[in-house]
């Protein structure tokens, strides 16, 4: 019933619709070019969910600290009922492991919905995250450490 699939040049229009966002054409291209870092979720072959993430690169490090979830959303009518969020998160975790990383980050204004997935508060003011501007007004940084 649930399946995931890549973004293609022909279905980028879905991003703004699913995420209620307004990415510019250029941004949409970049998201697509990130390959496995973005993914659609389908419920009975209807696209209803989306995840977009990117590597979190500390300023003074060559290798990324983990993957940062930029957007993980499911249309309200399909959200929280069919495990679409779980599947998208599981996908992100798999990509993280595939890249030999073990941390997934998210900046959110609503920590409670992430905590149930094992995300914990992370101090964004640490040296590691300096000048990355990870959190905006009212948001917190959360982190999940994956076990092997």
């Amino acid at each position, binding site marked *: 019933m649930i399946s995931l699939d890549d973004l*293609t*040049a*022909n*279905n980028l*229009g*879905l991003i703004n*619709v*699913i995420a209620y966002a307004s990415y510019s054409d250029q941004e949409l291209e970049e998201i697509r070019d990130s390959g496995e870092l973005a993914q659609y979720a389908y*419920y*009975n072959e*209807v*696209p*209803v969910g989306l995840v977009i993430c990117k590597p979190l690169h500390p300023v003074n490090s060559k290798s990324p600290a983990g993957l940062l979830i930029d957007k993980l959303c499911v*249309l309200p*009518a*399909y959200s929280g009922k069919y495990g679409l969020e779980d599947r998208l998160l599981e996908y992100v975790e798999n990509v993280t492991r595939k890249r030999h990383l073990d941390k997934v980050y998210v900046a959110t204004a609503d920590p409670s919905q992430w905590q149930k997935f094992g995300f914990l508060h992370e101090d964004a003011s640490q040296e590691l995250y300096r000048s990355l501007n990870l959190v905006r007004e009212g948001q917190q940084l959360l982190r999940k450490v994956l076990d092997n």
Partner: protein
Amino acid sequence: MSKTANYRATASKEENQFREALKLYDSKQYKKSLKLIDGILKKNPHHAESLALKGLALYYSDTDKASAESYITRALEKDGTNNVVNHIGGIYYRAVKNYKEAAKWYQAAMDHGSTNKSILRDLSSMQSQIRDFKNLPKSRLGYLEDQPGYRANWTASAVAHHLHGDLPNAEKVLGRIEELISDKLQESDYYEHSECLLYRNDVIAQMGDYEAALKDLDRIEATNMVLDGLSLLEKRADYLMKLNRKKEASLVYRKLLKRNPDNAKYYYQLEDSLGVRNAPRVRVALYEKLASFYPKSDPPHFIPLTFLAGDEFKRKAQNYVLGQLRRGVPSTFVNVKPLYKNNSHAATIYSIVSEFFETIQDQPLTYCWTAYFLAQHHYHVGSYSEALRMIELAINHTPTLVELYIFKARIYKRMNELDQAASVMNEGLKLDLQDRFINTKTTKYYLRADNVHKAIDTISVFTKNDDSPNGLRDLHLMQSIWFIVESAESYLRKYRKALGEHNSTEAKTNLGLAFKRYVSLTKIFEEFYEDQVDFHHYCMRKGTPRAYLTMIDWADNLFDQPMYNRVLDGLSETVLEAVRHKVLFTTEQGHKKLKKEEIRKREELVQYSQSVAEDDDVFGEKALHQIIQDEKLDILVKQQALLHQHDAVFTQIFNFRVNFQLKKYVLCLQSLNKLLALDKHNPFIGYMVVQLRNHLAESTPDTIKKIVSVGLMKNFGKADTANLLETYFGANDLETGLVLARMSETAFQARLSEIKENLDPYSRGLVSIVQLSY
């Protein structure tokens, strides 16, 4: 004595040189061939064979196509009884697609003693193409006698008899070859053999002796050589029905249903064979049985809905509709739409679905498709704002389904908000750019909104655009009829709008473009007709006489199809508009120097308008100007000859409009009377009566005036305006509105206003646009 010898020597030298030139021509060395011919002609400018060959070589060598014909005609004039010259003439006219002339000269070649029997084969192709079925059997037979070793020639001969209406001889020829060949068949012949057996059976059935046809069917089935099992069953069932052996027929229909339980036709035929059409109880029981045999097929579930009523209808409809909605079938509404002809059924279905809608909040896709169903219901009963509300509910719920946008756009279209409609369609398109269906829809909606450039941009994603700025040329090359006809209609609307705004330059350009598009469409249909040429020979060789005859039928009615009616309707309207507003084309518009901005705009317009490369009349202005000058309307008169269905409604209307412009009032009267016999309330009848009455006074010889007015008196003597309005303009539909829009008399205009009130906004808009140019 020596003089003749000398002459003979030159003659034979000429002969040899000519043979040499012919050889070169055959090996496609046209230039070398031409050189030799020129040598002969220098010595003997009257050598007809050389003249003819020169024409042909010129045609194929691309050096001087234009003068090719003059050599051919000169050669034929000089020595019209020389079979070599005749043959070359035939080849030339075939190449230039003048099949009538080609047939004439091929025939002449045979008549003048050519021993080249393969000419007969080409002759038969030409005769078939021009439908000269009277002479076809002779040439087919001639070729068969020369080459009896090929089954193709026997089949061809039989088909020729058949086309000429001589069924017994067709059957005889087919039987003869069947006998000759039956013990020599190889595996590669099996398909041809199977087709020929079935064809022979068709011929027998067409003679009307179904007993014999059935017997033949038994025979060929027993040979085990017929590969098309479906045809065997369908024919058997058909013959049994015709012989009134219904019980046996019903068994065959049951077999057919087993093969394909989704073919609704078999269900109805089964009913007829069982004789239960008028026995509702038995009918219900029958379908319940069938539905249990074929639970996954639609017809046994749907058909009972067409004859049930009351609670029984409600119960079955509920199962049918809700079952589909639960499964999320997008076409659920389309499936039940035929039932909407019955108002009480519509109400029942609506109450079933709207109750259901309240109970399924927690099943998102079912909810969504049900809202989609309800939106379509409201649209269908004409409550557009309610339809819009429902579709928006669905879109807000699941904004990623393309179907929802398509329908939302359709609602806006019906509300006559055409720009909005196109932009909603485009929103849907953005969700899935590789979906050709929505691309096509978006293109069409832009055309309906008269935004031709945007339409071309949209569809150009899917066209081949090398060397051209957009897909317009490719669409013409690919014969994309729907696109060309929609753009023609758009240009015609743009013309009328421009006329309404007194912008004569704009009006002229758009009318010219509409004309160009319509002419392209007529050419595409000509090409369709043309495409038959190779098949007169090919189908016989491949052993597909049945498919061949289907093609012949198709081509015979090609120009009477609804799509071509639409083309001719638009083409005649365009030409008649040009004639009525000839001032657009005849007043010299001062060639003032264009500003830079205007030049850029003009160039852009050319890019979006040029349908073929290197066109010197992109906007069709020269062509229309020519037609206005000429006054003979050849382009329309030519089309009249293509309409083969002499008793079709459209044929009368088209002929009337053309003949009226040409002031051939007696012919107009004939069309009027025919139309009256065909469709006694057609609004065009009223239109024709008024037109004839109003214009009869003008410049007609008294005799004609008398014929027409007596004719009018006979059928319409007592018809005053009120009477006409009541009889022919009673319907509140678009067609009636469009006819009235062309009539300026006050009484008719008042009736038009009434009709417009009752039309949906989109149709009302269409009528208003037509009014702009009348």
